[in-house]
């Protein structure tokens, strides 16, 4: 396939929307393909997310939505196409018509600007809540432990867990663990937050407290992409709803359009099952 144009190298990142003309998208996914063995999971995905917007990705399991999310911070490598975040290619450097994979250190540096929240929280069980949050800013960004600790306590306060700083993750409920995981991602002050089914592993009565934290972030203008099954959350918070099926984006648009007046038969079929 033809190589899509990539963002020009060395341009500034005018993504806050205050510059003249339309701002470059914060996330730009172009013609991305990804296979696991003989199974093609992403079959050419294009997606743009503007700074400050919330994009919710819906779709049946196996539709490729989690894989798409994981390619955005290079937890999965793409087979074709490219992804840029905040003006720079993720995981690669372009030279001529070829993309060269970056060295691990450069990829790790990119990842510090992209927060990722996992379905299973993946908190470090042998570290206290505070140490979970402090670890990355200190070791990856080389910030002073004292400053980071103060910031971490403010973050814990923000997710309503100021009194749990010295607890170990296993001593917390699932909802509390996921709120710590969100605080951990925020501690790197990322330009973009990715949520991979953040409430799917939670008991029903704990879903609300996690969604409230995410809503709060959305209202403060954090750019985020959320893979979820929570249709109500999508309707309330999303600027754009994206429906995926069988490795492709079937349709996307404002929540009112996609959720209430879906154009595509597969979207209708999916929504009729989950609503």
């Amino acid at each position: 396939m033809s190589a899509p144009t990539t963002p020009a190298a060395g341009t500034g990142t005018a993504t806050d929307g205050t510059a003249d003309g339309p701002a470059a998208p914060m996330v730009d996914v172009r013609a991305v393909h990804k296979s696991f063995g003989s199974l093609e999971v992403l079959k050419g995905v294009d997606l743009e997310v503007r700074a400050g917007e919330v994009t919710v990705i819906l779709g049946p399991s196996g539709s490729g939505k989690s894989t798409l999310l994981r390619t955005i911070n290079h937890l999965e490598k793409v087979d074709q196409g490219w992804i840029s975040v905040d003006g720079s290619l993720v995981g690669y450097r372009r030279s001529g018509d070829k993309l060269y994979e970056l060295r691990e250190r450069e990829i790790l540096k990119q990842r510090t600007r992209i927060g990722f929240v996992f379905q299973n929280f993946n908190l470090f069980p042998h570290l206290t809540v505070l140490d979970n949050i402090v670890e990355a800013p200190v070791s990856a960004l080389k910030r002073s432990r004292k400053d980071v600790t103060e910031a971490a306590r403010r973050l814990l306060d923000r997710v309503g867990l100021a009194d749990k700083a010295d607890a170990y993750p296993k001593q917390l409920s699932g909802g509390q663990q996921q709120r710590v995981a969100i605080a951990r991602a925020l501690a790197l002050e990322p330009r973009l937050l990715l949520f991979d089914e953040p409430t799917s592993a939670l008991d029903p009565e704990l879903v609300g407290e996690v969604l409230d934290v995410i809503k709060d972030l959305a209202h403060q203008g954090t750019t985020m992409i959320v893979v979820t099954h929570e249709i109500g959350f999508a309707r309330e918070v999303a600027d754009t709803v994206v429906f995926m099926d069988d490795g492709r984006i079937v349709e996307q648009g404002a929540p009112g359009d996609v959720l209430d007046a879906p154009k595509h038969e597969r979207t209708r079929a999916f929504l009729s099952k989950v609503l």
Partner: protein
Amino acid sequence: MSSHTLTKVAAPEDAVPSRIVPRRRTGQWTAAGLVLILLGLAVNSVARNEAFQWDVVGDYFTSASVLRGLGLTLWLTGLVMALGFALGALLAAGRLSGNPVLRAVSWGYVWLFRSMPILVQLLFWFNIGALYPTLFGVKTVNLLGPVTVAIIGLTLHEAAYAAEVVRGGILSVDRGQIEAAEALGLSRWRRWWKIVLPQAMRSIVPPAGNMLIGTLKGTSIISVIAVQDLLYSVQLVYHRTYQVIPLLMVATLWYIIVTSVLSVGQYYVERHYGRGSERAR
């Protein structure tokens, strides 16, 4: 309903029972009694059998040569464990690395050194001078004395087993932990040292404790190349005095004491690495 039929039988059953009586464990008490009797008989027989010559045991228990042998056994065990696990951790990292050359080399090492009996290996290193009479311009015999041979042989053997113990520990750590560390931008070294290894330690410590105790007693094999460890020290005495049993008892008691201390130590090490793994009560 059935509760009606029950309450009809006797009114007091409506009240909350005054206490709960556990089932009697007659079998347990009988077994305990039998074990105590057998233990008493055994202790009595050992203590009163004059062939054990407990006075001789007392004479040699803290004699200078036995303590020297014990000292050598202890530092050799410590050194071999430390070197063996350092090399073993590297081998395990090699086995799990993405580099096929490293994987093959690590696999080959473990295959070779697990295949060779430690006794054969020690004799081989002891006689290496026959294969390579000089090393680095020095006579091999001068370069590799019995103690050096013991350190090399035991370490290479230990590393092959340690590699598998460490690899098992690393595999027990949830894949999501590494992904989370990668997503946070932690360097390879930091992921390994701060995230994976501390969690792997929970599965590494019990088999490593086993290996440590095994090595402590396993070092006695170096008596074949005339290194004066604990066992060889008592052997030197009984070859002279023919008091075989009491002197073997001296060595055995020391092995039991050190093993007991190590077992207690293992408990605390396990508790340390188990932190954060218990739910709140």
